[in-house]
């Protein structure tokens, strides 16, 4: 048994294609772990299967192969312990903001009175600064406010894990920024374990403790795990002033621009690396590899990655 809260073990997703054709393998040999209280982001190009992974973690979809283990148990289906914040806000348009949150709260606490449910829902609407708008219908709220309701709904059930599928990608930059701050401050209070999909490198650097880099499909996999080398106490405004900012950023951009494509279709996969993708720490002094406790990988097996990473951070 590992100490990780979430572990994905050899996940694969295949879709049957037309007659006589082999099934389409979106991803395979996908391994990763997320520890208690960790904030993990996954970055990859559109269509590589990120949403499929998140839905499998949520229990809304099943992988074709492999296991997902959360808190020592196989994921069999959706659970109130794993809240999902959907890309489209997925609010019920016939309910008010409060009604949407109340629906979640009353499902979590079936024995609560209406007043208790309301009070608890209001607490979480306050947390995302929606007090005053609680009686409005989603159609009367702005995009950012709707996403806030979605966040309040997810948080109100006090889940162990928060799963977010590109939660801010449909928002304008200003709104996105304030919602990112919101997520940071909420997380500082609740200490939830968070798994988030994004395609925004800066968002990942601001929010995540570690970033899973996913290759392009088909046969996508986790190629590398990047540790966030920025200080724990960071804010949107001073992020770019840190000396590690550009090395970290360039490392990820370089992956997305070049290596994600080169490594597509399972290319460059080393058998030992699949189970334990290399963990890297891009800093101003160069990119170093982290020897994970369970990783028995000799250093030279990731030399190629090292070289490229070094080149990027030197650039």
């Amino acid at each position: 048994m590992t100490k990780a809260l979430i572990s994905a073990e050899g996940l694969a997703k295949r879709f049957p294609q037309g007659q006589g054709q082999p099934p389409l393998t979106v991803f395979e040999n996908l391994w990763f772990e997320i520890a208690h209280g960790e904030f993990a982001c996954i970055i990859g190009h559109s269509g590589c299967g990120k949403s499929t992974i998140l839905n499998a973690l949520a229990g809304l979809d099943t992988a074709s192969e492999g296991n997902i283990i959360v808190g020592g148990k196989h994921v069999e289906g959706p659970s109130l312990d794993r809240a999902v914040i959907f890309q489209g806000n997925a609010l019920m348009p016939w309910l008010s903001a409060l009604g949407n949150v109340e629906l979640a709260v009353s499902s979590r606490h079936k024995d609560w009175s209406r007043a208790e449910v309301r009070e608890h829902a209001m607490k979480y609407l306050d947390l995302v600064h929606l007090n005053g708008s609680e009686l409005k219908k989603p159609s009367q709220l702005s995009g950012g406010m709707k996403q806030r309701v979605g966040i309040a709904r997810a948080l109100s059930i006090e889940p162990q894990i928060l799963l977010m599928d590109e939660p801010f990608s449909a928002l304008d930059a200003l709104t996105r920024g304030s919602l990112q701050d919101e997520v940071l401050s909420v997380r500082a209070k609740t200490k939830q374990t968070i798994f988030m999909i994004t395609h925004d490198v800066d968002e990942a650097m601001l929010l995540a403790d570690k970033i899973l880099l996913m290759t392009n499909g088909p046969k996508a996999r986790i190629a590398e795990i990047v540790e966030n080398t920025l200080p724990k106490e960071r804010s949107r405004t001073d992020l770019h002033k840190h000396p590690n900012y550009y090395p970290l950023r360039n490392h990820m951009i370089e992956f997305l621009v070049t290596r994600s494509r080169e490594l597509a279709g399972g290319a460059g996969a080393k058998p030992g690396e699949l189970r334990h993708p290399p963990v890297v720490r891009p800093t101003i002094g160069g990119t170093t590899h982290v020897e994970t406790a369970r990783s028995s990988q000799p250093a030279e097996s990731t030399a190629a990655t090292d070289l490229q990473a070094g080149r990027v951070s030197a650039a």
Partner: protein
Amino acid sequence: MAQPSASSLNIKATIVSVLILATFLFAWHLGTAGVATTQKLDPEYAKLMGATATQGKSAMPGPIEVGAKIWEHLKDPFYDRGTNDKGLGIQLAYSIGRVALGYLLAVAVAIPLGFLIGMSPLMSRALDPFIQVMKPISPLAWMPLALYTIKDSGMSAIFVIFICSLWPMLINTAFGVASVRKEWLNVAKTLELGPARTALSVILPAAAPTIFTGMRISIGIAWLVIVAAEMLVGGTGIGYFVWNEWNNLSITNVITAILAIGLVGMALDQLMARLQKSVSYAD
């Protein structure tokens, strides 16, 4: 030039409506008033036809006569002087009662069945051929079968209302349920709402506008069909009243009844429109 406001448009529309009505009533009055002379008529024919021919009076009642008749009915809508002489209000109440009963039965069947069809692709396919065949059958075609099996004319009319109201509601419910957004169902799943709560607090409100569209179509059809059904089964109801007054050659009463049928139909439709509006949501 400024756009005319909605209220000024309403005022104009009302004025035009009143003008159209006035023109129609005037033309009706002119068309039915006695103007022709009878000199050239064969006296025997004139004798046969009575006042209609001899005084150049049309067989068609004029607006004034109909207006007087309406006033008469309005003064005493609920009198009851035997089988063939009941007030217009009583006859309408019979019809509305039958429509309500048949319609509510149809609601009770169509909505659960529509949920089943909408939620189960298997049932949807399995029941589709039956629905496709049953739907285009004129509801009145069921009448002989209903009379034969139920052996009660009133109940047969209710059955016909049931069968004609069923299809639009069934099809709309199934469609509304089947097209509930996947993301809402996913929310229900992640919140572990369970099947009963998902049906009641997610699928039902999501599909309600579509279901109510079906219900509105159904009430319209039911009100169309009840008149015909009552003409067939006889006894009571506004449909029977029309037919009976035709047999009495009381065209004034027929016209009055037609007007009443229209007004009640409009009221039913408006009622459903209100209900539909109350469950609709902006997305």
